[in-house]
């Protein structure tokens, strides 16, 4: 059995590494310190850790003050509160000033499970990618999350890291090749391209295998950085495979699939399907059960792939 780990763990481990190598890194939390895995940094570097209590707006603007003074603040809370509650603070205090503020939103997606709709963030990719200067990263496993966090500290400008609570196996092996903004081609193929982000890359990998059994050669792109989007790789996929399926644990309204479609319509329109949450709220339930129920599964991706292949010229 593969070692299962949530992406938030990779984030928490990277913070500790950063604490050692970068004295300017400070960590800000809003009363969810252990849940967002900021406690490991706090234990090692208490003088550079600040708790704001349940006050996300204050945390984000204070992070801006730190950044204006040369610090590299990582502000951590649940995705729903980071991206929603503090959106105006992120817009004005962080993005308008183009500051070096890194925001980590854990508990993203339907896989938050039993906590239900109030805590299942399904809109962060949309809310964050509309902001100028913002970079949006959605890691698919804890190792990718660790690399993304380490890279974030030295990547200029605001970054939103979307992280999850549910453990998944490590499916990436980057060695030294992780680059923010560069999609990872995890499997080659010529009939269709599946573009996944976050934990849906896990399901996309299974869908790739299932399609192979049916004689369909699917390319698999891990679009860990939704913004800035890797246009080149997406256009290449459209030209070379002629059909696209996107898969995200997020609303399809303005999410990663929308971002891909924006690239396609202007450059190389091809038949496309989006797997994601269809303009609705979540509900309580077991994480994996919910993912299946909402069609966020390998089966859901395979079904979409078969549909879109019929449309292919």
């Amino acid at each position, binding site marked *: 059995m593969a070692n299962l780990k949530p992406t938030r763990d990779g984030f928490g481990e990277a913070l500790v590494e950063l604490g050692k190598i970068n004295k300017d890194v*400070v960590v800000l939390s809003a009363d969810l310190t252990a849940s967002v895995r900021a406690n490991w940094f706090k234990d090692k570097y208490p*003088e*550079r850790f*600040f708790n*704001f*209590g349940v*006050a996300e*707006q*204050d*945390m*984000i*603007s*204070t*992070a*801006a*003050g*730190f*950044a*204006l*003074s*040369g*610090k590299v*603040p990582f502000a951590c809370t649940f995705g729903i509160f980071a991206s929603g509650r503090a959106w*105006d*603070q992120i*817009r*004005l*205090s962080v993005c*308008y*000033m183009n500051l070096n503020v890194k925001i980590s939103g854990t508990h993203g997606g339907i896989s938050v499970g039993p906590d239900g709709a109030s805590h299942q963030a399904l809109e962060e990719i949309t809310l964050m990618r509309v902001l100028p200067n913002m970079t949006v990263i959605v890691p698919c496993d804890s190792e990718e999350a660790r690399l993304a966090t380490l890279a974030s500290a030295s990547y200029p400008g605001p970054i939103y890291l979307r992280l999850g609570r549910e453990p998944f196996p490590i499916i990436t092996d980057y060695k030294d090749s992780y680059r923010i903004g560069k999609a990872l081609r995890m499997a080659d193929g010529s009939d269709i391209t599946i573009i996944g982000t976050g934990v849906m890359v896990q399901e996309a990998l299974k869908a790739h295998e299932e399609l192979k059994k049916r004689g369909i050669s699917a390319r698999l792109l891990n679009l860990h950085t939704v913004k800035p989007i890797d246009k080149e790789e997406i256009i290449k996929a459209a030209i070379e495979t002629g059909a696209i399926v996107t898969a995200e644990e997020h609303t399809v309204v303005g999410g990663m699939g929308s971002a891909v479609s924006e690239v396609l319509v202007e450059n190389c329109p091809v038949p496309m399907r989006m797997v994601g949450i269809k303009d609705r709220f979540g509900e309580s339930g077991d994480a994996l059960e919910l993912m299946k129920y909402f069609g966020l599964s390998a089966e859901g991706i395979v079904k979409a792939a078969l549909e879109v292949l019929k449309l292919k010229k």
Partner: protein
Amino acid sequence: MNKPNVDQLKDLAKEIRKDVLTMLSEAGSGHTSGSLSCVEIVVALYYYKLRHDPKNIKWPERDRFILSKGHTCPTLYAVLARRGFFPCEALMTLRKRGSILQGHASLVTPGCEASTGSLGQGLSIADGMALSARLDFKDYRVYCLLGDGELDEGQVWEAAMTAAHYKVDNLCAIIDYNKQQIDGWTSDIKNLEPIKDKWLSFGWHTIEIDGHDFKQIMDALDRAEMIKGKPTMIIAHTVKGKGVSFVEKNAPGYHGTALKKDDLEKALKEIEGL
């Protein structure tokens, strides 16, 4: 720079008021009455208190000033220009395309420390700067000017708790308490009183002054520096539209409006005669 005396500061305040009204009138829009109420406070900060160097804007040891009520940026712009951060000619480009003087305070202006305009965010930004100074073992101080209507924003009170909790004593905030906001008197819209007790109960040291009296402002800024273990809030009682009688009489009406050319002439004459 030799520090100017009170009479010189008064003369400067007159010039700043004239600049503010003229640049707003030239722009054809902007926030008149709230810019006039904070003139003495901003002048005292930049000509008496702040440790800064207009020739070395990013000097790491400088004191920081955050204008949280970002809509009253004309006052800040006029003071920055006269203080030498950029040429005074730029003032007449306020709110025009390509200008370094945006409609609300913005980092694009030399000497402006933070972009503001959506109310309630400045005190948090100031907290972050003040905490950074502590981490870096630097002794610079951070000043933040808030509007009274701005205190309706919940984030201000989040930031107030943060500053007290972390005993941020290199922070001094000031309320431009002109008692009015866009919709009218603060007491009618959402009563702020007892304002001093609120800040005291949030763990701040408070000083109450006449925000148009230079001696009182300077004295309060000096006293704030002596307070250790907690942040200081200076509650500055001011008059919205101060210096121009017809603006004072209809301050909410001039909250977001510039003077027409005829009114500008009248206003400039009145200020000259003060």
